[in-house]
């Protein structure tokens, strides 16, 4: 039963990852964009150690979220443009399965971009971010982004102004996760304990669950003609 549910989810994610490895249509522009954001902020604020601790979490999550949006925009537009979304919808799996497969693909892709970004950020701002707390915050917050972003990507793919529509739909809903991620990262850099950071992680976790459940339901309607 579980294998029947998880098998197609992994198949969809595997297919998306393989396509991205072959084409690099998303990862290249997204990584370049994210690095540009970090470089521009680096020159704009001339960071001192005190200032870095204050602004770094915000800059980091600006780079992650905007880069994530660029990637999410392509998640369904490529399927839609090539007509392959119909092929997915003809498979004998529930719409939930398609949703979770696309979420998993987007999630792994966004984590890969973040893994590339962290050392760049560390070098430019002279700040070590390879801390378990930061990785935990990034892993949970990114799941929330992928959960919401996937359903809005499906909705936006049916509109003419999809590149504008996705951020307009995404940011107001994802805002609590962005705020919690920034606060959790800032707490880590300030040296707050697990108890303080854990509260932000819990908050992100609650939103992740809500996003996955509600978005999974909304996804059925997003695919309708």
């Amino acid at each position: 039963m579980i294998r029947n549910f998880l098998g197609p989810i992994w198949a969809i994610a595997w297919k998306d990852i393989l396509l991205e490895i072959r084409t690099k249509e998303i990862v290249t522009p997204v990584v370049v964009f994210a690095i540009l954001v970090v470089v521009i902020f680096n020159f704009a604020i001339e960071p001192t150690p005190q200032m870095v601790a204050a602004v770094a979490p915000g800059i980091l999550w600006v780079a992650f979220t905007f880069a994530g949006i660029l990637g999410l925009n392509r998640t369904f537009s490529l399927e839609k443009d090539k007509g392959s979304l119909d092929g997915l919808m003809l498979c004998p799996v529930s719409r939930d399965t398609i949703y979770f497969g696309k979420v998993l693909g987007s999630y792994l892709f966004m984590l890969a971009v973040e893994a590339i970004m962290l050392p760049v950020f560390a070098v430019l701002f002279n700040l070590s971010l390879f801390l378990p707390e930061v990785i935990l915050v990034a892993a949970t917050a990114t799941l929330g982004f992928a959960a919401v972003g996937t359903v809005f990507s499906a909705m936006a793919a049916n509109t003419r102004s999809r590149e504008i529509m996705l951020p307009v739909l995404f940011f107001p809903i994802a805002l609590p996760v962005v705020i919690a991620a920034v606060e959790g990262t800032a707490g880590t850099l300030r040296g707050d304990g697990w108890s303080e950071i854990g509260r932000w992680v819990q908050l992100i976790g609650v939103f992740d669950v809500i996003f996955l459940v509600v978005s999974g339901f909304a996804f059925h309607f997003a695919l309708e003609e």
Partner: protein
Amino acid sequence: MSQPSRDSLAIKVKGLSKAFGRTGVLRNLDLEVPWGEFLAIFGANGSGKTTLIRTLASLTRPDSGQIDVAGLSSRREGEKIRTIIGVVTHNILLYEELTVYENLKFYGRMFALKDVDQRINDAVGQMGLSHRMHQRVRILSHGMQKRLSIARALLHHPSILLLDEPESGLDQEALGLLQKAIGITKGSLRAVLMTTHNVEYGLSMADRVAIIADGKIVHKESKETLDVAGFRNTYLHFTGSAL
């Protein structure tokens, strides 16, 4: 995988309507396809052929009406229906950057097929694509892509085939392969609904023919009693264009 019921019709459509905005595409359409029958539906552009296929395939939700496929209700049992239908549309429904094998392997996993490699070998063999197995779809010609699209639709050995103008883009050899591939399991529990513009091809394949105009089936006829010239006149009468 679900087994179709012999007790019911392969396809039964009653009062099917679908509109896009204010434009009605299917209007109270009724249709029945028994098991073992190959029905070819002829219609002009915009008559509702593609929307009918998409609605039967559960790609488009109808506004009203009842669709039963192998006795399964499309509203409640879409997932089960998708295990027993194979669909060929205008789009190839394939990933251009994956190879022939990878595409079929992906669909095999989505259909939870057990002997997937054997089925892939059979399907590509039937469509004359064995030597292209490890080539990316992007570099195949349009005709080869269409052949692969048919192999994809046949991979899970569907009982019901929904073919939307499958002959477009295929050469004579490929048309013969398609005819053979459909015929291989003919006589077993199978039904085919095909839309087409090509009268020679449609008549060579079908047991029964129908005409769709303005979103309705306006004419049905068995091929046994068919007079081709008369059928062309009937088509002209209902659609205003020649076959």
